[in-house]
C-alpha cells in the first residue's frame, strides 16, 4: 500500500477522536474537551493541506486510492483527494467545527456525551463528502451527514424539533435517492464509480449518453443537490431545520451542510453532464435569481431573528448558484469563495443569535432593542458580521458577490438580465440586515429584562474571534484564496466548454 495521504489523515482524524472518546472519556467535560481538541487538531492538520497544495496541478492532488469492493464488472474504491475546488471547503469544515463545538459548551447540558459524539461523526461525514472521488464513497457520506443532524435537531432542538428533524431527513433523503439511481446507472455503464475515470472515459468518447439520458441524469443529480442548497422552490425544509436546531446545529447546517449541495453541482453536474449543464443553465440561473429575491424578501418579513438569518441563506446561496451557472471562471470562483464566505458570515450570525437566545430564551426581535448599551462588545462583533453578510466592501461578502456578478454579467451561458435582478438582491440584503440590526441593537434600551444581560463569555469570545479574523482576511486578501482555485476551475470551465463545442460541431 502506498503512503497515507494527508487528505486521509485530515479526513480520518475526527473518527480517531471519536473512537478515543468512546474508550477513554468518562465525564461530560472529557467529552467537551475531547471533541474540541479533536476538531482543533483536525483544523491544524488541515492547514498543512494549504501549505502543501501545489497550484500548478489542476487535477486532484494528495490522492489516495484503495480497492474497497471488487466484483465482476465494476470496482468501488476508497478514493480521496483534493483540488482547487474542494480545498477551501475542507478548510471551511475544519474551521467551523471547533467554533460550533466551543459555542455549545454552556448551551448543551443534557446528554452531553452523545452530543459531542454526533458532532465528530458530523465532521467526519462532511469531510468525507468533500474529499470523496468515488461516487459510492461520496453517496455514503452524503447520506451519513443526515444521521447526526437528525439527532442534533431532534434531541437538542427547540419545541418543534421532531417535526423539523424528520422533515429535514425525509426531504433530503427523498431527493438523494434519485441521485442514487443515477449513480448506479452511471456505474453500470462505465464499470467504475470513480469520477476521474468516468471523466476520462467521457473525454475520450468511450462513454457517451444520448441527449435525453444526459438530461435525466443531470436532473437526478441536480434535484438532490438543489434540495440541499436549497434552491427555491425546494427550500421549505430549511427554515424549520434552522429555527429548531440548536445553535451549533444551525451553524453547521448553514456553514457547511448547505455547501454540500452547491459543491455537488460544481463537482458532479458540471463536468459529468456538460451538455445538459449548458441547456439547463438559464433555468437554474433563473431559479437562483428567484431564490435571491425571494429569500431576501421573506427575510425582511420575519419577526424571529433566527428565521431571518435562515431565509437570508436562501438568498445568499442563490448568488452561489448564479455564479456556478455562469459557467465561466469568474462566476465559478466567485461561487466557491462565496460558499466559504457564507459559511463564515452566516455561521457567525447564527452564533450571534444563539448568544442572545441563551440569555433571554427568545429570538423575537421585538423582545430586544438597544442591546448595544447592555452588551457593547457583543454588539460590535455582531455589527461586523452583519456588515460582512450584507456584502460591505472590504469585508469577505463583498468579494464573493462582486466576483459572481462580474462572472454572470460576462457569461455566454446566461443572459445579463439575471445579473441585473441579482444586483437587486444585494440591496435587499442591506435592507433586511440593517433592519434587524436596527431593531435589536439600536434604539433605547427600554426592556427591563435586557438591562442586565451579561456580555460575551470567554468561550463565546473565542468562538467569534476567528470569524472576525476571517471576515477581514478574506475581505482584503481574496486573491490568495482565488489563487488556489485558478488551475482547477480553469480546467473545469475548459472541460465544460470543450465538450460543448465538440457537441456543437
Amino acid at each position, binding site marked *: 500500500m502506498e503512503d497515507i495521504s494527508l487528505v486521509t489523515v485530515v479526513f480520518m482524524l475526527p473518527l480517531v477522536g471519536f473512537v478515543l472518546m468512546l474508550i477513554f472519556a468518562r465525564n461530560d467535560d472529557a467529552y467537551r474537551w475531547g471533541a474540541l481538541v479533536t476538531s482543533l487538531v483536525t483544523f491544524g492538520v488541515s492547514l498543512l493541506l494549504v501549505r502543501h497544495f501545489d497550484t500548478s496541478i489542476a487535477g486532484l492532488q494528495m490522492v489516495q486510492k484503495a480497492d474497497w469492493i471488487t466484483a465482476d464488472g465494476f470496482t468501488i474504491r476508497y478514493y480521496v483527494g483534493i483540488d482547487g475546488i474542494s480545498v477551501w471547503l475542507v478548510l471551511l469544515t475544519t474551521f467551523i467545527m471547533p467554533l460550533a463545538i466551543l459555542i455549545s459548551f454552556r448551551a448543551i447540558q443534557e446528554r452531553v456525551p452523545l452530543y459531542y459524539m454526533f458532532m465528530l461523526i458530523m465532521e467526519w461525514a462532511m469531510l468525507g463528502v468533500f474529499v470523496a472521488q468515488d461516487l459510492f464513497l461520496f453517496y*455514503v457520506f452524503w447520506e451519513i451527514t443526515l444521521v447526526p443532524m437528525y439527532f442534533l435537531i*431532534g434531541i437538542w432542538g427547540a419545541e418543534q424539533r*421532531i417535526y423539523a*428533524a424528520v422533515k429535514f431527513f425525509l426531504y433530503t433523503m427523498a431527493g438523494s435517492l434519485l441521485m442514487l*439511481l443515477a449513480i*448506479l446507472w452511471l456505474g453500470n455503464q462505465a464499470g467504475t464509480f470513480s469520477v476521474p475515470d468516468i471523466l476520462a472515459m467521457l473525454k475520450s468518447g468511450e462513454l457517451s449518453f444520448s441527449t435525453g439520458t444526459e438530461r435525466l441524469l443531470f436532473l437526478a443529480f441536480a434535484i438532490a443537490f438543489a434540495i440541499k442548497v436549497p434552491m427555491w422552490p425546494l427550500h421549505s425544509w430549511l427554515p424549520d431545520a434552522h429555527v429548531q436546531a440548536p445553535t451549533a446545529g444551525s451553524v453547521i447546517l448553514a456553514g457547511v451542510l448547505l455547501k454540500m449541495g452547491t459543491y455537488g453541482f460544481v463537482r458532479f453536474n458540471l463536468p459529468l453532464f456538460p451538455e445538459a449543464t449548458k441547456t439547463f443553465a438559464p433555468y437554474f440561473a433563473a431559479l437562483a435569481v428567484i431564490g435571491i429575491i425571494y429569500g431576501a424578501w421573506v427575510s425582511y418579513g420575519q419577526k424571529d431573528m433566527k428565521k431571518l438569518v435562515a431565509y437570508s441563506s436562501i438568498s445568499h446561496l442563490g448568488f452561489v448558484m448564479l455564479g456556478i451557472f455562469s459557467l465561466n471562471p469568474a462566476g465559478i470562483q466567485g461561487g466557491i469563495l462565496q460558499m466559504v464566505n457564507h459559511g463564515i458570515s452566516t455561521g457567525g450570525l447564527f452564533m450571534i443569535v444563539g448568544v442572545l437566545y441563551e440569555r433571554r430564551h427568545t429570538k423575537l426581535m421585538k423582545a430586544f432593542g438597544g442591546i448595544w448599551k447592555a452588551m457593547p462588545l457583543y454588539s460590535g462583533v455582531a455589527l461586523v458580521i452583519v456588515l460582512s453578510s450584507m456584502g460591505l466592501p472590504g469585508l469577505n461578502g463583498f468579494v464573493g458577490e462582486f466576483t459572481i456578478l462580474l462572472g454572470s454579467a460576462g457569461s455566454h451561458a446566461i443572459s445579463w438580465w439575471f445579473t441585473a435582478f441579482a444586483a437587486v438582491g444585494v440591496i435587499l440584503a442591506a435592507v433586511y440586515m440593517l433592519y434587524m440590526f436596527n431593531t435589536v441593537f439600536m434604539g433605547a434600551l427600554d426592556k427591563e429584562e435586557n438591562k442586565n444581560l451579561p456580555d460575551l463569555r470567554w468561550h463565546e469570545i473565542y468562538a467569534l474571534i476567528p470569524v472576525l479574523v476571517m471576515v477581514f482576511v478574506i475581505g482584503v486578501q481574496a486573491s490568495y484564496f482565488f489563487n488556489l482555485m485558478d488551475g482547477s476551475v480553469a480546467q473545469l470551465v475548459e472541460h465544460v466548454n470543450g465538450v460543448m463545442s465538440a457537441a456543437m460541431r
Partner: protein
Amino acid sequence: MFTVPSLSDLNLAATLPATLLALGASVLLVLDLFVPKGRKALTAWLALAVLGVSLIVALLSLGDVVDLGTGEGAFFGLYIADSFTDAVSVIVLVTAMLGVAVAYNYLERTGMQRGEYYVLLLFSALGAMLMGAAGDLVTVFVALELLSIPLYILSGFRWRDEGSEESALKYFILGAFASGFLVYGIALIYGATGTTAFGGIWAATRDLLAADAATKYVLLLGAGMVLAGLGFKVAAVPFHMWTPDVYQGAPTSVVAYMSVAAKVGGFAALVRVLAWGLPDFVLSGQSAAAWQSTVWLIAALTMILGNVVAVAQNNLKRLLAYSSIAHAGYILIAVAAMGTAGVANEAARAVVIYLMAYAFTNVGAFAVIVAVERDDGGHTDIDNVRGLAKEQPVLAASMAVFMLSLAGVPLTAGFVGKWFVFKAGLAADLVPVTVIGVLTSAISAYYYLRVIWFMYFEEGEGKAQIAWPLAWGISVAAIGTLILGFFPYLLSDMARGIALAFGG
C-alpha cells in the same frame, strides 16, 4: 429396473453442512428427553453447537478452504452443492444461531422453556438450507414443508394465549393452501416438461419453445403457481395477508427467527426455480424471461403496500411485519432482474447479499422487541420504547442501527443490500420498478425514523429486560450490521462465486 443406489453414489460429502445439521437435530430430539426440566440451557447450548459446527463447515466450503465435492450434485441431482447453496446455508445458520440466543431468556421468563423449541428451530433451519440446495422441484417441496411445519408449531408455542393460537392456525391453514399451489404448479411443470429436475426443465424449455408447442402455456401456468406458493413464504403481495397477524400473535423470539428464515428459504427456492430451471423461458417476441414482468409487478405492489401500510402501524411487531413485506418487494426487484439474460448472475448475487444483510438487521430488530416485551406478551407498542435511549443507551443505539439499516442508510448492511439490488434492477433495464423501490424507501424512512424518535426524542420510562444471551444476540446482530456496512466487500465476496449452473 430399479437398482438400490450405493452410498457412495449419493455423494454425501457434498451435503455435509445439511447432513450434520440433520443428524444433530435428530440426536438432539432424543437427547433432550434426558435433559431435566430446569436445565434446558444445555439443550440450547447443544443446539448452538450443532448450528456452529454446521456453520463452520459451510463457511469453509463457501470460502473454498475445503472442497466437499462442491459443484457436483448429490442424491442424483436432487441436491446441488455450489456457492449458492453454501451462501444460503451460511445465512440460515447465522439466523438460527441468533434465533437461539434471542429465544433462551425469553422462553425462560415467559414459562415456555421446552426443549422442543430448539429442535424445531433446527429442523426448520435445515428446511431453509435445503431450499437453497434444491436441484429438483421435489426437493423444493419437501424442504418447504420441512421449513414450514416446525414454524407452524413454533408460532403456537405460547398455546394458552389466544393470539398465539390464532397465529399458528392462520399460518398453518394459509400455509397449507400455499403448499397446494406449489404442488399444483410442480405438477403442471412436470406435465409440460416431463421432469422435475431443474436441469431437465431447463433443457426441455428450449425444446418446448423451439417446437412452439401450446404446452408452453401449461409451463407458464405452472411457473405462476410455483411463484404464488413461494410468494406466500416470502410474504409478497397479494400473498401477504397472513404476515401481520402471524407476526403479532406468535412469540416474538419465534418471529425474530421466522421472519428471516422463511424469507431466506422462499427466496432461495425462487432463485433456484426461476434462474436455474426457467431462465430461458422466453416467449417469442420478448427479450426477457416470461416470468419477469409478473415478478416485477409483484415487487412493485409489495413495496408500495408494505411501506404505505407500515406508516400507520403503532405496534412494533406489526410495523416490522409490514416492513418485512416491503423488504420482500426490494428483493423481488433482483429476482425479476434475473430474467434478463446476462444480468442473472449479478442479480442472484444481489439476492444473497440482501438476505445476509437483512438477516442480521431483522433478527436484531425483533430481538430488541423481545427485550422490551413483558412476560405476558404485551408491551410491544411503539409507545413502549419511549425514552429507551436514556434508560438503556446501548439497547437503543442498537435499535437505531437496525432501523437505519432497514431504511438503507449508508454504513449499515441494509444500504449495501439495497445498493446491489437496485444496481441489478437498473442493469436489467427495470427502471420503473427500481424507481418505485427508491421512492418507497423514502417512505419507509419515515416509520423507521419514527421508532428512533420515540426512543431518543421522547420522554418515557423505557423499561427493558436483557439477560446475557439476548444481549449477546443483539450485540452480534448490531456489530454484524455495522461491519457489513463498513466493509461491504465481505458481502460481495461472499456472493462472488455464485453462477448459474445450467444457463447464463
